[in-house]
C-alpha cells in the first residue's frame, strides 16, 4: 500500500494528462453501458409500475379478446367459487387536443368495487365531495396530481378529450392524490365512473377487464380455470405479473441489442487501459528493476500494476456512473418512444436508479480494468532485478506474440462462424451475439500481425508519397507494434461497429423503404386523431365510415381493425382487413407467392395471413394451422401466406373482415385506407373529407406520401440511440490514439532528439507523428471494414432475423465506407496533432539526455 501510494500514485498524478485520458476511456465505456441499462430498466420499471398500479391488489385479471367482456361477466365472476371481490374496468387512451395531443389514459372504474383493490385519495377541494361528483356527473374526471400540477388544473376546470374521432369536454371533479395510481403511465392518467367511461369510449355493455381478488385459501390456478369456464372461451385469465413478464420477454431482444452495443464501448475502453498500463510498465522498467533489486518480490511488482489497473477501474467507473446517469436521462425518452413504436405503449419520465445496476457497472469497470492490466502486470513481474529500460527487447517480443495471437484469432473467427451457423440452424439468437463478440475478439487478435504486414507493405508507398517522414512513420508503426497494434485494434473495433451497424441500418432502411413503396399503396389513410397520439385502439365512428364511401373518385375502402387476441394462451395482435379491396388494389410483401393471389385464396377459404414475426415465435410456416381463441372456443386456421411487416415486431394475424366479424362479432374499425380511381385527385378528396366527414377535426387524414415519410421517421428515431453509441465508441478510440501517441513520443524521446540533431525541422517532426497517426487510422480502417462487414452480415442474417423476425436484404452503400474512412483517418490524424506539437516542442539536448 505504501509502495502504491509513494510510487504509483505519484506517477499517476505526475502525468495528469495521460491518467485523465485513460480514466476518460473507462468512464465513457461505463457511462454508455450504465446509461443504456438504466434507461432500459427505467422503461421496464415504468411499465411494471403501471401494471402494478392499475392492477392494484388484483390476483387475477380477466380480459376478453377484441370486444372485451360483456357486462354480465362481472356477475358471473362474482358468483365464481373462490372469488372474494371483483372490480370491472374499462380503459381508453384519449388525446388532449389543447395539450398538444398528449395521450392520457382514462380508467373507467366502479367506485363501489374499487376500495378492495386500489386506494384512492381524492382531493376534491373544500366540499370534499369528489367521489359523489364523479358519480353524479357523466363527464366528470379525477385527474392525477401530476397532471393537475403540470397543467395547473383545479377542481371544476374543463378538460377537452378526444375519444376515437369525437371530442368531448369533461370536468375535473377531483385530484387523485394516490401515490400508487399516480405512478401509472407516468402520471398521465385520469379516473372516471365506469358508466360514463363506457359511454364515452363507445363500449356500452362491455368491459375491458375484470380485476379479481381470491377468497382466503383459494387456489389461484383452480379459480383461474373456473373463471375461464364461467367467462367463455375467448376470455383470458392471467396473473397481472404475467403480462409484465410477457412484455419483458418481448423487450428482451431490443434491450439485449442495445446492451451488447454499449458493451462494445467498455471493450474499447479495455484496450485503452491495456495500452496505458503497458506504457507505464515500459517507461518504469528501470524503476521496477530497481524496486526488484531492493527486495520487492515478483508478486509485489505485479500487485503494484494490478492495483494501478484497479485504480483506473474504480476512479473511471465513479466518473462513468455520474456521466451514465446524465446520459440515461437523455436516452430515456428515446428508448421509451422506440419501445412504444415497436411493442407497447410506455411512458417513462423518471429514471429508476437501481443500486444493483450501478454496483454492477462499477464492478464491470474495475474487473475489466484489472483484466486489461493483467498482461502488463505480468510483464512488470518478469522484469529481472536491476534491468534498465531497453525498448528493443519489447519490440522483438511483440512480433512473436503477434503470431501466436493471430493463430488464436483465426480459431476464434472459426468459432464465430460455427456459432452463427448454430444460431440460425437452432434458432438461438443469443448465440448470434456471442458470435458477434467472437468476431470482434478474433479480428482484435489478428490485428497485430495485420498491422505489421500493413506497415511493411505501405513503407515504400509512404516513402514515395511523403519522403523520409513517411518512411519513418511506417517504421515506427511496425516497430512499436505492442503499442500501436492495441490502438489500431481499438479503432478497428469502433469502426467495425460503425460499419456493421450502419450497413445493417442502411440495409434495413432500404428494405423498409421498398416495403413501404410496395405495401402502402392507398391514396389516403384515415384514423382517429386520438390513436395518432396515443397509439391506442381508438375506434372510427360509423358515421365517418359512411362518409368514406361517398368520397368523390373513391374506388375502394379497406377497413382495418387491430385488436388484442390470443393463440395457445399467448397474446397476439388479431387484425382484420377488407381482403377483396386489398387483393384488387393493395399489396403485401409475401415471403412466398403473389399478394393478390394469396389474399384472394385466404378470403375464399377462410384462411389467415400472418407476419414473419409470428412464424418465428410460434414456429409455423405457410400451410400450417394456427389455433386462435375465439368467443366459441379455440379454432384452427390455415396460414395462407407469411408477409413481411416492419412496423412491429409483435406476432400479428390478419384475416378478412367478414370472417372476423362473423366469429368475433366486432364491427370496430381502427383505420381505413382509401383507394381512389386512377386519375382522381387525392388532394381534392382530402379536402372533401375535411369538409364533409363528421367531426373531421377528430380524424387524422394522411396522404400516401406523408405516411411513407412518417414510417421512415419512426424508423430513424428507433436507431437514434444506436448512432449515439457508435459515436461514443469512436471517441474512446480517439482518446486511445492521443494517449498512445503521447506515450510513444515520451518513449521515443531520444530518437526524436537525434532526428532533430541530424537536421529534422520541427515541421518535419510533426509530419512524422501525423503520418504515423494517419497510418494507425488507415490500418484501423482497413481491418475495421473487414470486421464491420462480417458484423453487418451477422446483424442482418443472424441477430435481427432470429430476434426480431425481420428479413432484411443486405445493401452495401459506398457512403458508409467513405464516411468510415473520413471518421477514422481524419480523427486519427487530428488525435495526433497535440502529441505532434508536444514532440516538436521538446528540447533536443533534453531528449538526448533522457536516456
Amino acid at each position: 500500500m505504501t509502495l502504491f501510494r509513494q510510487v504509483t500514485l505519484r506517477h499517476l498524478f505526475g502525468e495528469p494528462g495521460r491518467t485523465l485520458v485513460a480514466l476518460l476511456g473507462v468512464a465513457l465505456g461505463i457511462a454508455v453501458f450504465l446509461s443504456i441499462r438504466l434507461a432500459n430498466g427505467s422503461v421496464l420499471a415504468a411499465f411494471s409500475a403501471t401494471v402494478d398500479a392499475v392492477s392494484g391488489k388484483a390476483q387475477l385479471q380477466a380480459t376478453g379478446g377484441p370486444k372485451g367482456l360483456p357486462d354480465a361477466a362481472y356477475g358471473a365472476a362474482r358468483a365464481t367459487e373462490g372469488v372474494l371481490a371483483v372490480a370491472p374496468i374499462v380503459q381508453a387512451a384519449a388525446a388532449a387536443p389543447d395539450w398538444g395531443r398528449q395521450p392520457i389514459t382514462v380508467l373507467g372504474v366502479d367506485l363501489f368495487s374499487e376500495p378492495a383493490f386500489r386506494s384512492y385519495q381524492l382531493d376534491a377541494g373544500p366540499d370534499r365531495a369528489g367521489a359523489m361528483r364523479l358519480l353524479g356527473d357523466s363527464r366528470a374526471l379525477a385527474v392525477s396530481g401530476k397532471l393537475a400540477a403540470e397543467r395547473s388544473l383545479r377542481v371544476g376546470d374543463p378538460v377537452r378529450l378526444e375519444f376515437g374521432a369525437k371530442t368531448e369536454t369533461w370536468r375535473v371533479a377531483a385530484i387523485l392524490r394516490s401515490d400508487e395510481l399516480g405512478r401509472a403511465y407516468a402520471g398521465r392518467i385520469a379516473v372516471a365512473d365506469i358508466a360514463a367511461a363506457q359511454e364515452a369510449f363507445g363500449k356500452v355493455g362491455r368491459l375491458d377487464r375484470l380485476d379479481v381478488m381470491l377468497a382466503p385459501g383459494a387456489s389461484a390456478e383452480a379459480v383461474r380455470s373456473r373463471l375461464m369456464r364461467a367467462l367463455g372461451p375467448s376470455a383470458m385469465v392471467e396473473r397481472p405479473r404475467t403480462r409484465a413478464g410477457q412484455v419483458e420477454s418481448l423487450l428482451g431482444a431490443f434491450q439485449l441489442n442495445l446492451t451488447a452495443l454499449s458493451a462494445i464501448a467498455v471493450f474499447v475502453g479495455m484496450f485503452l487501459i491495456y495500452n496505458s498500463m503497458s506504457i507505464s510498465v515500459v517507461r518504469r522498467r528501470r524503476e521496477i528493476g530497481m524496486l526488484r533489486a531492493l527486495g520487492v518480490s515478483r508478486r509485489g511488482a505485479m500487485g503494484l500494476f494490478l492495483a494501478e489497473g484497479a485504480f483506473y477501474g474504480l476512479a473511471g467507473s465513479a466518473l462513468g456512473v455520474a456521466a451514465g446517469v446524465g446520459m440515461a436521462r437523455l436516452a430515456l425518452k428515446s428508448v421509451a418512444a422506440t419501445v412504444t413504436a415497436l411493442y407497447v405503449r410506455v411512458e417513462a419520465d423518471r429514471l429508476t436508479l437501481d443500486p444493483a445496476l450501478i454496483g454492477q457497472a462499477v464492478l464491470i469497470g474495475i474487473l475489466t480494468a484489472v483484466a486489461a492490466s493483467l498482461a502488463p502486470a505480468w510483464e512488470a513481474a518478469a522484469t529481472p532485478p536491476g534491468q534498465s529500460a531497453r525498448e528493443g527487447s519489447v519490440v522483438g517480443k511483440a512480433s512473436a506474440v503477434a503470431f501466436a495471437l493471430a493463430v488464436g484469432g483465426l480459431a476464434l473467427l472459426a468459432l464465430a462462424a460455427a456459432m452463427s451457423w448454430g444460431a440460425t440452424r437452432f434458432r438461438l439468437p443469443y448465440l448470434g451475439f456471442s458470435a458477434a463478440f467472437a468476431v470482434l475478439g478474433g479480428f482484435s487478435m489478428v490485428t497485430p500481425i495485420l498491422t505489421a504486414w500493413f506497415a511493411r507493405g505501405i513503407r515504400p508507398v509512404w516513402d514515395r508519397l511523403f519522403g523520409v517522414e513517411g518512411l519513418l512513420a511506417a517504421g515506427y508503426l511496425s516497430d512499436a507494434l505492442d503499442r500501436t497494434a492495441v490502438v489500431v485494434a481499438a479503432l478497428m473495433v469502433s469502426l467495425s461497429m460503425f460499419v456493421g451497424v450502419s450497413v445493417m441500418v442502411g440495409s434495413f432502411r432500404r428494405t423498409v423503404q421498398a416495403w413501404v413503396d410496395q405495401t402502402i399503396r392507398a391514396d389516403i389513410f384515415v384514423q382517429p386523431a386520438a390513436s395518432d397520439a396515443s397509439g391506442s385502439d381508438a375506434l372510427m365512428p360509423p358515421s365517418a365510415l359512411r362518409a368514406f364511401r361517398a368520397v368523390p373518385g373513391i374506388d375502394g375502402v379497406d377497413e382495418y381493425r387491430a385488436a388484442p387476441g390470443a393463440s395457445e394462451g399467448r397474446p397476439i395482435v388479431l387484425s382484420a382487413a377488407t381482403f377483396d379491396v386489398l387483393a384488387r388494389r393493395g399489396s403485401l410483401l409475401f415471403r412466398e407467392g403473389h399478394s393478390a393471389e394469396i389474399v384472394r385464396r385466404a378470403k375464399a377459404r377462410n384462411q389467415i395471413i400472418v407476419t414473419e414475426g409470428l412464424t418465428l415465435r410460434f414456429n409455423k410456416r405457410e400451410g400450417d394451422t394456427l389455433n386462435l381463441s375465439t368467443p366459441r372456443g379455440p379454432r384452427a386456421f390455415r396460414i395462407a401466406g407469411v408477409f413481411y411487416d416492419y412496423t412491429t415486431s409483435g406476432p400479428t394475424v390478419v384475416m378478412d373482415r367478414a370472417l372476423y366479424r362473423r366469429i368475433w362479432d366486432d364491427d370496430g374499425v381502427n383505420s381505413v385506407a382509401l383507394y381512389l380511381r386512377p386519375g382522381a385527385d387525392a388532394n381534392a378528396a382530402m379536402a372533401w373529407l375535411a369538409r364533409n366527414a363528421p367531426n373531421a377535426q377528430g380524424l387524422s387524414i394522411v396522404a400516401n406520401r406523408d405516411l411513407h415519410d412518417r414510417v421512415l421517421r419512426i424508423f430513424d428515431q428507433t436507431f437514434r440511440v444506436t448512432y449515439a453509441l457508435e459515436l461514443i465508441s469512436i471517441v474512446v478510440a480517439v482518446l486511445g490514439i492521443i494517449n498512445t501517441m503521447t506515450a510513444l513520443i515520451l518513449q521515443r524521446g531520444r530518437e526524436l532528439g537525434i532526428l532533430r540533431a541530424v537536421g529534422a525541422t520541427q515541421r518535419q517532426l510533426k509530419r512524422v507523428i501525423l503520418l504515423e497517426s494517419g497510418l494507425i487510422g488507415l490500418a484501423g480502417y482497413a481491418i475495421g471494414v473487414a470486421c464491420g462487414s462480417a458484423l453487418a452480415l451477422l446483424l442482418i442474417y443472424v441477430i435481427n432475423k432470429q430476434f426480431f423476425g425481420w428479413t432484411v436484404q443486405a445493401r452495401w452503400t459506398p457512403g458508409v465506407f467513405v464516411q468510415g474512412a473520413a471518421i477514422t483517418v481524419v480523427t486519427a490524424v487530428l488525435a495526433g496533432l497535440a502529441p505532434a506539437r508536444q514532440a516538436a516542442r521538446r528540447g533536443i539536448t533534453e531528449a538526448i539526455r533522457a536516456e
Partner: protein
Amino acid sequence: MIELRDVTKEFRAENDDVFAVRDVSLSVPKGAFVAVMGRSGSGKSTLLNLVAGLERPTSGSVQVAGRDLAAMDDAALTAFRRDEIGVVFQFFNLLPTLTVAENVALPARLAGKGNGVDDRVRRLLEQVDLSHRAAFRPHRLSGGEMQRAAVARALVNDPRLLLADEPTGNLDTHYADRVLRDLRAAADERGCTVLLVTHSPDAARWADRCLWMQDGCLREDGE
C-alpha cells in the same frame, strides 16, 4: 571555423544556478582535429552542444563557419546544422526503425536532396567498411559498426564541421580505433574540422590539439 567568445552556459536548478560552461573562449581553424577531454560533468558535452547549436549560450557568442548561431531562429539553425555540421553521439546513434543505408541517407533526405544520395551513401558505407551491412537494421550491428555508420551519416551532407560526443565511450579498443580512424580520415581527406569530446586519452591522441575542461572552464593541454 569555430569561434567562441566569453561563452557561459548556466542551467537553472531549484535552489542554485549551475554553471556548465564558464567564460570559455576558443578558436578552431578549418580542417583542425581538436579533442576536448574532461571528467563526467565537467561541461564538455555542453560545450559541444553549444557549438552544434543544440543549446543557446547564456552569454557570449558562438560563431561557426562565420555564422553567429545566436542570430538564427530554430528553422535556420536546424538547416545550418543539417547542411554544415555532422554529429556523432555516444549511445543509440542510429534510428532503429531505419536500415543502415537509410540511416546514413537520413540527413540528406531531410534536406530534400534526392539526386545522387544513394551513390553517396554507397561510397560512404564503402569507406567505413559497412557495404555488406547496408540493408541491416541497427540492432543487428555491433557497437563499433553502429558508430561507423553514425560517422558515415554525419558525413553524408559533406559538412564543414564534424562533432563527436564520446563516440568510443562504449567500444573496445579495436572498434574504437576503427571509428577514430574514420574521424581522422574526415579531417585529412575531406578537410573537415573535427571537434571530439572524450574522456579517453587514447582517443585524444588521434587529435592535432587537445583541450581540457574542468568545472566548466577550458584550458590547453599541458597548461
